[in-house]
């Protein structure tokens, strides 16, 4: 099992979500984050002083998947989140040792199988 974490543009969330659903991914946890990378900051001004908001709003998706789902998930995200401009974001893949579904106590791959599937 892997934990896939993707940082994407906020306005790409709807299409990424769509693509993930199509790829059969059901469990997703998202959070609002701020990212800094190659993309420059936004220059704002306030009462005559300029300043750079160096971190841009991003959305982070955390998705736990069984091994066979890793490739399709990454593919789905890459395709649906890409604009080709700097700031599209990154995907990180980490090892995941255990998963527990709190409701049932099911473990690992079983815990990852969507309800009703």
């Amino acid at each position: 099992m892997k934990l896939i974490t993707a940082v994407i543009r906020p306005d790409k969330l709807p299409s990424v979500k769509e693509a993930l659903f199509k790829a059969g991914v059901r469990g997703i946890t998202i959070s609002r984050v701020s990212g800094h990378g190659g993309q420059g900051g936004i220059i704002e001004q306030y009462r005559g002083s300029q300043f750079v908001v160096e971190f841009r709003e991003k959305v982070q998706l955390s998705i736990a998947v069984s091994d066979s789902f890793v490739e399709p998930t990454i593919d789905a995200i890459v395709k649906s989140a890409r604009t080709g401009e700097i700031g599209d974001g990154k995907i990180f893949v980490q090892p995941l040792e255990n998963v527990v579904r709190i409701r049932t106590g099911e473990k690992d791959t079983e815990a990852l199988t969507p309800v009703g599937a």
Partner: protein
Amino acid sequence: MNKSKFGVLGLIVSLGCLAFAQDAELADKVTALEASLAETNFALDTLSLLFYAVLVAFMQPGFALLEAGLHSAKNIVNIFMKNIMDFVVAGLAYWAVGFSIMYGAPLFIRGYEAGWVPGQADFFFQLVFAATAATIVSGAIGGRMKFTAYLIFSAVMTALIYPVMGSWKWGGGWLDQLGFADFAGSSIVHAVGGFAALGAVLAIGPRLGRYAGNKINAMPGHNMALAGFGVFLLWLGWFGFNPGSQLAFSTAADSTTVADIFINTNLAASAGALSAMILSWALFKKPDFTMTINGILAGLVTITAGCDVIVGGWAVVAGAIGGILVVFSVLMFDRLKVDDPVGAISVHGICGVWGTIAVGIFGGGNLGVQVLGTLVYAAGAFVSGYLIFMILKYTIGIRVTAEEEVRGLDIAEHGIEGYSPSDYVGDPVVLSAVAGD
């Protein structure tokens, strides 16, 4: 005896003279009193008009807050800029040109004598009306219009469109001659604002993401507290808008009419809120908040034309119909892909027309003339609004880029966010100065 005779005569004459002297003194006093009372009445009329004008001025922040609440957080600075500049631009343009066009007063109005109303106070009262007409458009085109385009429109509206159309009735023009009735401006202010908004929305198109094929995406406003409070301010401001339009106050008849107008106005607002709430409850299973507040405004716009003649129960009926109209109208425009985030077209346009016609139904007005008049206003405003924005579209452009729209007008047009990130972390950690010198 002769002496005595002259003595009597002397007595008579001196008595008479005394009486006359006494009378003359009294007469002077009475004349002075009459003049003084006339001044008091003039002062009372002035105070009333200024009081009602200030109440109407409260509608400006009311509109700003309502629009701010029903739009996204990323556009709030732009919304306040527009609403503030409306008042600013009207304050200069209507003063310099508009009032003159509308009422035949001199340009750059000064020391204006209006005859039966205190001229200077009346000017200020009319000014806040002009600002209202412009502001109505703001909410409908929010979230996508260039600030410069809006400023230009605002100036043309308060300097030309509203004054010219207003002169047809309130300036004693041809509609006034026909016997058209619009007491406080269901047509002249609201339908004009609402249908200019329709023209503007058709020219600029819907917000990005509002329509996806045949799907209508809800784009919920970001803050219902702002919207709710804004509507409260509008409601209270209407107690200046309608009663103040009586313009004279110092007689028993006038002041009783004014009190009646308060009551009729409030009845229509209440009825509009109630009918819109009940209808939304029936349609959507839950009492809908934004429909209810639109219902209040619908009732208020409806009664505006006939607040002096549509009384008591009839005000309730007229207002309730307004509340129903606004719900269906909002749903209809949504389906027609006319994207009006605050419902300005429905509230001010549709209910403005309805309210004007209602004077012909419940208020003793000539129905034909009422229909004609309100259609003229609606059509005129629609065409003007559409034309101005189409001209601007093909000259300076009226719409921000897609990227700017997604990012929000606050950053795009004013370089600053409405809600600063320092909000969440406690101090502005993500900021660093670029150029402080």
